[in-house]
């Protein structure tokens, strides 16, 4: 029986439910020390001096002079130091590193830092530095507006969001073989590898990065582990002993990346029949103090900024700028939840302005196969915006519910969205990801740099390989993501692990099957010795993209989604309670339907948190609610029943037709919920929709 499409048992399920799975803080090495970080307490200024308030002879203390290579975190641009280079640009910036054998002694160690403070920038609109600017132009905007019967304008704001992976960031650095081995909770072992080679000035073969079982990432362990691994490695090399650094929750929330806040402005020309004839969109994102991944987050943001709507005359202008706050980074959705929130709330406002049914307005304008996006990409036959909308509307009895709830303290709203799978534009070509498959006596072992962080990488990869080889799922093993033995399959991000890496693995398996011929694996090994097949990403011939002009095929494929949210407003406290959420997602093919549903339910729950609960409060450049008691994420009592519908419309270049799924589900809940609040006559254009904001908007709305 084929494994694909079946709900086979997750590879690591037993280890996780018995407590046997080893996460980084469960590991220990002989002679191991514990490390900690002395961080900036001011947002901006020069460091005059540092003075440990303890006897340094018992301690390992490391600073900039102890960095063997370049003091940078190598990523896109080398602008972020591993340790502050004489000045600090955000609160919690690392300044000095300490190690000691007693974990608790570290907690009490104080270092006096004398600063010369400078004036910080917190308002992105007033930032003196633009990290990245992107312009997308299609058609003639002036001509488009000249055809408009109405012009609708609006500004929409989203806040920071904390990934709040349940396991905090942590690594152990072990000096060995004239180099360093790092074990850690991370998404992208080869990102850490690249950063350590530069930071430590070591040849690549002396740096080894091993992913330990990882308690969630959601993007939050994409780039930050390079920083933490750097710190632990500097200490370990200086001490000549293994060093463990595991953040507690407060430090993790204060110091590590969050979702970029955004301000998005729309000016839209609409013809009298409801067709959109001109879109002028301005996107501003707050990157924080260093560039990190901000250009790529902005890119995905602007590429999704129109929403899934056709328009001939479009301009999207995006900027991501510096502020003196901790750098923002990757979080599930990666720029798209921000711009899709704006697009979908704006769509609702257009329907209000035209007094037109919101479903009908979307039906008129949504992308259909053959339509072109803002970058000129012609959408393929798997474009399913109409199908997801139709399914969600029919399933929820949307029109009838909308009428029934009118004038009550409840509302119903919807959002229509899409999400590109894999790296943007030429990104996959530049990554040139590789995957390997090794023959074993009973089947095969998968060798990929892709990580299991809960989403089911091991399981779905094994399903794809099992079917391509024609062997049982149980006979496929999955190697640890260890740079000493797996190839670089690119980062585990961007909803690419199934569609892109899964496809490379499928090709490996098909080649292996051809080489085996009629021989059993055991017989082949006996006759010919070991067999390892390695394949590289192959770009579909029709994909074309220009980074210079931002024209062409931005993504190989898109997933399509529609959410319907029904909410209630507490008449006294103004709290918003989601009553029910319907999530219809078209994802090409569900390799493992239960895992796929889990991704949709999980992303939806995080989207509900983004919409109404999760507010990062900044005070003087620092997160003021950096703990789980007052940064609130959905519990079972906050999460309504989620009705998940998976539609399948195959993408020809995905394994079994699969497209990406991990990120898309978080795009829809916030606009659907805010549109449901709007249904109650409340003009809200900002998230999170906290009781304070809902009360304020309720009191000024008619």
């Amino acid at each position, binding site marked *: 029986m084929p494994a694909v499409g079946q*709900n086979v*048992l*997750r590879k690591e*399920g037993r280890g*996780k*439910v*018995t*407590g046997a*799975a080893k996460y980084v*803080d*469960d590991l220990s090495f002989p002679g191991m020390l514990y490390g900690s970080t002395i961080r900036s307490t001011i947002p901006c200024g020069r460091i005059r001096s540092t003075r440990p308030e303890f006897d340094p002879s018992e301690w390992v203390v490391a600073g900039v002079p102890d960095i063997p290579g370049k003091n940078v975190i190598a990523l896109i641009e080398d602008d972020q130091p591993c340790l502050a280079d004489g000045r600090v640009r955000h609160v919690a910036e690392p300044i000095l590193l300490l190690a000691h054998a007693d974990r608790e002694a570290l*907690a*009490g160690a104080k270092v006096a830092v004398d600063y010369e403070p400078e004036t910080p920038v917190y308002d992105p609109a007033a930032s003196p530095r633009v990290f990245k600017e992107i312009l997308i132009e299609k058609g003639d905007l002036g001509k488009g507006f000249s055809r408009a019967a109405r012009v609708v304008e609006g500004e929409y704001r989203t806040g920071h969001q904390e*990934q709040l*992976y*349940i*396991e905090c960031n942590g690594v152990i650095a072990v000096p060995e073989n004239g180099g360093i081995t790092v074990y850690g909770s991370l998404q992208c072992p080869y990102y850490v590898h690249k950063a350590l080679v530069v930071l430590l000035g070591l040849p690549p073969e002396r740096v080894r990065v091993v992913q330990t079982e990882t*308690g*969630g*990432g959601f993007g939050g362990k994409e780039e930050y582990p390079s920083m933490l691994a750097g710190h632990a490695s500097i200490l370990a090399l200086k001490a000549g002993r293994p060093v463990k650094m595991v953040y507690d929750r407060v430090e993790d*929330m204060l110091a590590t990346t969050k979702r970029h806040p955004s301000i998005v402005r729309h000016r839209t020309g609409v013809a009298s029949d409801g067709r959109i004839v001109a879109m002028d969109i301005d996107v501003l994102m707050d990157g924080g103090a260093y560039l990190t991944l901000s250009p790529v987050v902005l890119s995905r943001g602007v590429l999704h900024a129109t929403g899934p709507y056709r328009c001939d005359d479009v301009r999207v202008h995006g900027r991501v700028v510096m502020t003196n706050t901790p750098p923002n980074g990757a979080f599930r959705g990666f720029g798209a939840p921000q711009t899709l929130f704006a697009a979908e709330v704006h769509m609702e406002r257009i329907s209000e302005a035209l007094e037109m*049914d919101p479903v*009908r307005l979307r*039906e*008129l*304008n*949504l992308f*259909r*196969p*053959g*339509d072109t996006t803002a970058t000129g990409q012609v959408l393929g036959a798997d474009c399913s915006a109409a199908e*997801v909308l*139709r399914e969600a509307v*029919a399933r929820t009895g949307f029109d009838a519910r909308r009428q029934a709830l009118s004038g009550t303290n409840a509302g119903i709203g919807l959002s229509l969205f899409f999400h590109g799978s894999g790296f943007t534009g030429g990104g996959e070509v530049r990554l040139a990801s590789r995957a390997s498959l090794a023959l074993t006596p009973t089947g095969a072992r998968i060798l990929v740099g892709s990580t299991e962080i*809960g*989403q*089911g990488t091991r399981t779905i990869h094994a399903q794809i390989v099992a079917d391509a080889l024609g062997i049982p799922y149980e006979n496929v093993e999955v190697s640890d993501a260890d740079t000493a033995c797996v190839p670089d399959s690119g980062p585990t991000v961007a909803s690419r692990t199934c569609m892109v890496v899964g496809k490379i693995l499928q090709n490996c398996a098909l080649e292996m099957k051809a080489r085996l011929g009629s021989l059993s694996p055991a017989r082949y090994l006996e006759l010919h010795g070991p067999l390892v097949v390695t394949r590289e990403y192959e770009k579909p011939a029709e994909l074309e993209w220009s980074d210079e002009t931002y024209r062409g095929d931005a993504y190989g494929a898109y997933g399509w989604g529609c959410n319907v949210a029904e909410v209630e407003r507490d008449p006294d406290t103004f709290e918003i309670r989601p009553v029910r959420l319907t999530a219809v997602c078209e994802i090409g093919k569900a390799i493992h339907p239960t895992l796929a*549903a*889990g991704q*949709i*339910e*999980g992303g939806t*729950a995080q989207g509900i948190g983004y919409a109404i609960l999760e507010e990062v409060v900044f*005070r003087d450049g*620092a997160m003021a*609610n950096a703990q*789980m*008691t007052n940064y609130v*994420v959905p*519990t*079972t*009592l906050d*999460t309504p*029943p*989620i009705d998940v*519908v*998976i*539609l*399948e*419309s195959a993408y020809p270049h995905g394994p079994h037709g699969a497209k990406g799924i991990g990120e898309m589900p978080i795009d829809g809940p916030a606009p659907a919920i805010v549109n449901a609040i709007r249904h109650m006559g409340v003009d809200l254009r900002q998230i999170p929709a906290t009781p304070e904001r809902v009360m304020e908007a309720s009191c000024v709305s008619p």
Partner: protein
Amino acid sequence: MADDSRSGFTRRDLVRGALVGAVAATAGAKTPAEADRGIGPGAVPITLQINGQTHRLTAEPRVVLADALRDRLGLTGTKVVCGRGACGACTVLVDGNPVCSCLLLAAEVQGRKITTIEALASDGRMKPIQEAFVAADALQCGFCTSGMVMSCKALLDRTPKPTRDEIRHAVSGNLCRCGTYPHVFDAVERAAGIRTAEGRAHPPDGTPVFQTLAASRTFTSDQRVDAGVAEALDLEEA
């Protein structure tokens, strides 16, 4: 909610501080290093009944149960996540009741019956609730799973046939950022024999389940506008 974390002050710091005065009179003298740190009166003998075995250790009275389990006894299946009882990841059973082991001092649970995740499959065979978690895929990253399983076990021990609402409340203190909640409900209902393991059926309260459908192809680009209007009208009638 006036909790201000900018100082980096944690619940464990609070426990340390509060106990310095309370226990100093009865405990042994401080070593010079501990006196410098000002965080405790020195180690005392502690005897714990864990998973049917007696463990004797020497630890400062301020040491919380979670740290004693993980750092002193090597029982790393219990996870520490927030350190202040906000997430439930460190849930263990004390006399059968689910509690946050990051909020309990090891010294105060002497003589009580402590059960951790390691006890559940100690004979190599998973308990029905664990089997159900695997079968229903009621876990993703797994870091909340130990605590989640312990809360579910405590529920089933006292309520063998829980309602959906009882399950929802029983795990409301266990945060799962992966959002596995619907799968957890499914797992508990399977372990309770309320539903069979043949996939997710509609539970009695009508909570929906996911479906996989083939997307139908209706539109082509050249008929888009007219078809779109027709489609909109169809939807209005639906």
